[in-house]
């Protein structure tokens, strides 16, 4: 019982510690093991002791803001951070006499996303009104697609890094129930001091794609990895910029627990999650909270909870007065949306500018992350987990490929420098790849020195740290010559040092001759100490062996 929970606790402590050091970095998923925490426990407060093996069930509802110049049903601009109510048309303000006019780009964005997620595109989809009263919804309803959305039945393929060292790529998938087009609402700012709400309609009417996922996931880690992969896909397609902190990608989690094989338990909805990191934490907290409730014989309430990042807990949101009835009705001002499979199915005489053809969009799809990873593995011969790490960090692929161009070194020898040395420093100082203090060409230069044998690999790491500290003010060559870090391969000098070491360590020499091979490392260590780590280890080893056999 204790082991999986203990492992989860250790892991969460580790995550907390690393996250304290790097508060704003993007979430790289690593794990002690890919098994999500399961509770194996006994009911304590009742007379019947029944072993319960509870499992979490997570379904996600994702709202992705469509990356377009104008809003979904009006020609006002879509921009972040503009003066309040400056990007609002008469339709957005819901003035009488205005009508919605659908933006072609929004339809194309939804179709491209649907293709990337292997969905079935509905040839005909319909728009509906979803009614509720709120200050930031001036019309009193939201135009959405409740009856027939634009796409259904897809799958999102993602991976987790598992295994003991966190370097085994485990493929997973989650089914996409549907993708629908809908309007965003405005923003309300609550001024509690004066008891009023301020409303800015700049965001009202911006196009959203709502992606509904089936509850195929079992823990926060899986959800975080899935959302990360979705973010990469949307960014590659250009249909959504995917920035969670700016509200371009909003994720709500539906969480419940049950015993595997039994019907699903009561679920709660968790909102107010502003980053992938918080998503994992919020879900894991909620799963644990529900398991604790069931363990003590209580029952889970169907409610909406908000994630509080400061305490790392979920708290009940203001009561929504029971189940809402949205009084869905067809949107009377919009005819059905037709999306054609190929140019042959477009009716004769139709305006080409007015038609969305799936085949032509499919042909124009850019390279998706999964394909990029496979391409990197094949072209450069790196391992899948390296490709995974490269793509997980914005701009790291470009950095890696630029270094490769500038140096003749084998990719497999370069990848470690990019995914370990460079990435570690970036994470430590909370920088993104664009802010790296060492440029790809400088790193390439350093690697050339290493390849040429002018420095040892441990010295190379030192030099890299120094280059970082100097923020590129000095090149690798300059640092090496300044600090005299060049490999000493002067044979005579080395021979003198080796002879000295052999003479001053008679015991070790004897031991070696007696058959103890390992003692050679101690001798090498002494030589390195003498030469301040600048002796070429291969040459030193050879000379030492010569010296020892000579004096025998």
């Amino acid at each position, binding site marked *: 019982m204790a082991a999986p929970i203990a492992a989860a606790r250790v892991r969460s402590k580790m995550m907390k510690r690393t996250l304290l050091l790097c508060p704003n970095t993007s979430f790289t998923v690593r794990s002690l093991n890919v098994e999500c925490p399961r509770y194996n426990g006994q009911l304590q407060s009742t007379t019947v002791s029944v072993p319960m093996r509870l499992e979490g069930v997570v379904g996600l509802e994702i709202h992705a803001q469509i990356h*377009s*110049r*104008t809003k979904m049903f*009006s*020609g*006002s*601009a879509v921009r972040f951070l503009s*003066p*309040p*109510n*400056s*990007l*609002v*048309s*008469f339709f957005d*303000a819901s*003035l009488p006499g205005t009508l919605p*006019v*659908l*933006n*072609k*780009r929004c*339809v194309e964005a939804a179709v491209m996303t649907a293709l990337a997620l292997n969905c079935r595109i509905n040839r005909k989809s*319909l728009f509906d009104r979803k*009614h509720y*009263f709120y*200050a930031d919804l001036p019309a009193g309803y939201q135009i959405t697609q409740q009856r027939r959305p634009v796409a259904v039945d897809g799958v999102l393929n993602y991976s987790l890094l598992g295994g003991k060292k966190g370097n085994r790529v485990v493929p997973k998938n989650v089914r996409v129930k549907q993708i629908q087009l809908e309007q965003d609402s405005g923003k*309300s*700012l609550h001024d509690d001091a004066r*008891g*009023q*709400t*301020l*409303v*800015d*309609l700049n965001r009202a009417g911006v196009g959203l794609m709502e992606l509904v996922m089936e509850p195929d996931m079992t823990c926060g880690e899986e959800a975080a990895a899935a959302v990360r992969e979705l973010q990469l896909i949307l960014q590659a397609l250009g249909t959504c910029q995917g920035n969670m902190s700016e509200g371009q990608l909003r994720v709500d989690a539906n969480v419940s627990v049950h015993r595997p094989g039994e019907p699903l338990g009561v679920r709660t909805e968790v909102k107010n999650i502003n980053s992938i990191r918080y998503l994992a934490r919020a879900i894991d907290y909620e799963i644990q909270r529900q398991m604790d409730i069931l363990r003590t014989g209580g029952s889970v309430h169907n409610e909406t909870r908000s994630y509080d990042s400061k305490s790392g807990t979920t708290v009940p949101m203001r009561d929504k*007065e*029971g189940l809402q*009835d949205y*009084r*869905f009705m*067809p949107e*009377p*001002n*919009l*005819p*059905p*949306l*037709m999306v054609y499979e190929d140019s042959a199915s477009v009716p004769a005489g*139709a305006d080409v*500018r*007015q038609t*969305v053809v799936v085949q032509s969009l499919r042909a124009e799809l850019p390279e998706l992350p999964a394909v990029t990873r496979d391409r990197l593995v094949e072209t450069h011969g790196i391992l899948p987990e390296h490709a995974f790490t490269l793509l997980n960090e914005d701009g790291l692929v470009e950095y890696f490929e630029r270094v490769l161009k500038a140096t003749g070194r084998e990719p497999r020898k370069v990848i470690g420098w990019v995914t370990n040395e460079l990435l570690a420093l970036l994470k430590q100082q909370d920088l993104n790849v664009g802010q790296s203090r060492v440029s790809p060409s400088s790193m390439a230069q350093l690697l050339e020195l290493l390849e040429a044998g002018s420095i040892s690999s441990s010295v190379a790491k030192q030099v890299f740290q120094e280059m970082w500290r100097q923020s590129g003010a000095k090149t690798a060559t300059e640092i090496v010559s300044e600090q005299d870090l060049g490999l000493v391969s002067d044979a005579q000098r080395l021979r003198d040092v080796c002879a000295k070491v052999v003479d001053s360590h008679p015991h070790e020499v004897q031991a070696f001759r007696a058959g103890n091979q390992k003692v050679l490392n101690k001798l090498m260590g002494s030589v390195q100490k003498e030469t301040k780590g600048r002796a070429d280890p291969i040459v030193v080893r050879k000379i030492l062996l010569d010296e020892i056999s000579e004096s025998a």
Partner: protein
Amino acid sequence: LFVCVCPAIGWQPVQGVPSADLVDKLERLALVDFRTKEGLACLEKAIRFAAQLHVVDTSGVEPMDSVLEDRILHLREDTVLEGNHAEELLQLSKNTVEEYYVAPPDIPLTTFEQSCDSTRSPIRIFFCCPL
């Protein structure tokens, strides 16, 4: 009195006189005040009127939900044509603060039991029976 509306959208059948709880819920959803005797009588009349729809057998017939089904949905190019009316739009509202609209505060809705007479509040409309 029996009302059963489109099961596909998930509405529940309502039987008999609407309960106090249901009246509360309807008032909250519609933000319409009809707690008076006249209001309730009007509601019952409206429900009975609408129930006549179920006299017709519509099994196997697709509902017509739009008069535009033969029209082609016009798709607009993604170019900025509107916006920058902040001053004009804000003039429409009595209360504004620095280019923001001001929404009225959340007035807690009282339940049916708490108020027997109709209470007017700024955001509710008194329901007048048209039938």
